[in-house]
């Protein structure tokens, strides 16, 4: 467990996201109604960065193709909810985002990137 300080809380107001590059890793922080979430910063659909992702309630919307992920679990919501099961190759596109543990201490956002 190695917590790393990424930002001040006020840098990511409720309803907003912020993208970080940390060496070879990327992280996106999302503030949903005051609760902070950290997820991998690359959309597994086409490996595009989630920089500029928009938060719609609990869903993180990828700016490239509008794939949506639940910030609480990292699971893909859309288009997994409409992709047909008889085309299994599509399931490769809707893999979840990795999630990271977040702690907020004295206004600082710490993320466990292990």
């Amino acid at each position, binding site marked *: 467990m190695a917590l790393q300080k990424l930002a001040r809380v006020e840098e990511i107001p409720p309803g907003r996201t912020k993208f970080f590059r940390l060496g070879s890793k990327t992280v996106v922080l999302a503030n949903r109604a005051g609760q902070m979430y950290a997820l991998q910063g690359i959309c597994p659909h086409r490996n595009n960065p989630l920089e500029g992702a928009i938060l719609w309630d609990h869903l993180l919307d990828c700016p490239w*193709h509008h794939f949506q992920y639940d910030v609480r679990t990292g699971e893909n919501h859309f288009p997994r*909810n409409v992709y047909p099961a008889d085309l299994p190759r599509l399931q490769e596109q809707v893999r979840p985002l990795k999630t990271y543990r977040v702690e907020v201490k004295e206004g600082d956002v710490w993320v466990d990137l292990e």
Partner: protein
Amino acid sequence: MGKVARQVVEQAGIEVNVLLDKLVRAAGAEFTTFYYYTILRVNAIGFDGEGLKEIIEDARIEDRNHFEALTPRIYELGGALPRDIRGFADVAGCPDAYLPSNPRDMKAMLNVLVEAERCAVRTYTEICNMTFGKDHRTYDLALAILHEEVEHEAWFSEYLTEGPSGHFRRGTPGTSPYVRRFMSADIG
């Protein structure tokens, strides 16, 4: 390309290449949606499907109209459509609207349709937000498309009984009451 048309957008503070990327992705999504909605429409049959067929057709034709209306603006700003249509499909800004595993499952088909329209609503809202007060022509076009995408979402959402109906029929299929004025090649 319009030299000054691009310059005024740049000078208003918009990164034109970023905007062009969004417009090409949006055009790609309209083009692929037109294709996929064709498959959905022909499969909308039976007691449940026949009633749905007409509004799929409206949305299908209007999405094609959106592609037609977006394309001149892309070139005016110095952009271009990809030379390879496969590349165009790959950059489409919304996921493909596949026919459900069971093509007779009209509720599954409606979910595909409503989610596709919601993706379009988000797409044009972003473009409107980016261009408002800066790129008047793109904003005006994106807003016109947004009006129609919002109506499409409402039609399919109402079919899923998610809320009371505000739906009224188009006079003829795919009239595009908001976008039509941008299709200058069609209306002369």
